């Protein structure tokens, strides 16, 4: 197989450049394998965050040829042989070094999400849920927190000034899981509207496009949450029904 031509971002917050490496490859290699080979043979100080190499830990997020991807799940034969492949760090988050970014923004948002608030348990102290009530939430629990959806979302990617007012797609998935939980008693409509900035999302679906777990973030989490916020704040008929029925 011909050598891969890798253009890898090298540098830190103060500056850097794309540096080119020629790497012998074998069949079946993924981008992370090639990055590891560079690290082992040509650039021992290349910083890259990784852990499972199986698409489940969400550590090796980067931008390969400009597309947000998990490096461990991106096969080299996806790219035309002999053409340079660009590997850059996630653009949305502050750069620490090389391919490693500081994703602490997400942990800060996570702390603000109103927690699960269960109702009263049954007489024997347990909860019983029907299968159809929890099926919908299973999809949301697949999230591996790779933060590729947060990285690609233009609300904060191109407008970092929105970060204090916008939770981002990963947390809309979390909020959808809580809101649709059959045992949860809390309403997060106010949080979604005022704190999480749900209305910033213009549903352009990039989060869904890059999700390595194929979660339908926009259709199954964000839009249903938008509809719940509409019922709560923008729908006079729903408001009237709530007043009359008391729900």
């Amino acid at each position: 197989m011909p050598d891969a031509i890798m253009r890898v971002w090298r540098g830190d917050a103060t500056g850097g450049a794309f540096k080119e490496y020629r790497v012998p490859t074998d069949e079946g290699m993924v981008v992370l394998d090639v990055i590891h080979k560079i690290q082992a043979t040509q650039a021992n100080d290349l910083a890259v965050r990784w852990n499972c190499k199986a698409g489940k830990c969400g550590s090796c997020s980067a931008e390969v040829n400009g597309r947000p991807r998990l490096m461990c799940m991106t096969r080299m034969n996806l790219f035309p042989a002999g053409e340079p492949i660009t590997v850059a760090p996630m653009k949305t988050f502050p750069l620490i070094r090389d391919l490693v970014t500081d994703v602490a923004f997400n942990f800060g948002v996570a702390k603000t999400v109103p927690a699960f608030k269960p109702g009263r348990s049954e007489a024997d102290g347990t909860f019983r849920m029907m299968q159809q009530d929890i099926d919908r939430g299973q999809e949301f629990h697949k999230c591996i927190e790779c933060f590729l959806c947060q990285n690609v979302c233009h609300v904060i990617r191109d407008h970092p000034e929105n970060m204090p007012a916008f939770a981002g797609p990963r947390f809309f998935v979390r909020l959808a899981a809580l809101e649709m939980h059959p045992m949860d008693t809390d309403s997060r409509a106010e949080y979604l509207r005022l704190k999480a900035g749900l209305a910033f999302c213009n549903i352009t679906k990039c989060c869904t496009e890059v999700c390595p777990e194929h979660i339908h973030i926009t259709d199954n989490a964000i839009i249903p949450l938008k509809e719940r916020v509409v019922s709560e704040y923008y729908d006079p008929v729903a408001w009237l029904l709530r007043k009359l029925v008391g729900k």
Partner: protein
Amino acid sequence: MPASELAATATLRKDTWWLEPLLIVLGLGGFVVYTTWAALQGAHYEYQNYLSPFYSPTLTPSWWPWSPAILILWGPAGFRLTCYYYRKAYYRSFWWSPPACAVRDAHGAYTGETGFPLILQNIHRYFFYVATAFLIFLWYDAIYAFIFDGRFGIGLGSIIMVVNVALLSMYSFSCHSCRHLCGGCLDKFSSSPLRYRLWRMVTTQNESHMLWAWLSLVSVALTDVYIRLLSMGIIRDARFF
């Protein structure tokens, strides 16, 4: 190269990311131009028992001097304008916000749908109600298209009209607001089994909402073109029965 320069790069994508927005501009833009022209004509919108969907229901009050289509098209136009799929399509293609994933947004500041006028997108479910009312008229027209001089018959126009209204129905009832109203708003499906079944049916079609949006967009324009050409005497209707 400062790291800020890397962040300022419009995109590092090498694929043809511009193709999809370009096709949508051509498709949606072409439809809007044709619909506007057809709606302003106020003529050649019916032929025998066929009625163009742009003119159904036909309202012709004596005080209205312009085309009757203008009185009604706000309904279906509002439904499509506030539709979650079309929002994605035109925010990306016409407004470049963003033009494609991981391609820089074309605007210096961004507030999304937080303020006027885009906050009005929240009335989508009301346009869904309006669009459903329009479907009743369109189904009536489609059935009436099988009645030629008081007798049952089938023309190419009858088939076109029934296919068109079927596609419009699939588009309307696969809508995200419809999905929410049918059962998506519930937390406990087990307590409302009928609504759960309905939600599952709508969910299945909702996965193809984009497809229904485009097919119905094309069909509604083609139906008008066919009836217009018949009315202008340019073509003749094929009768099968």
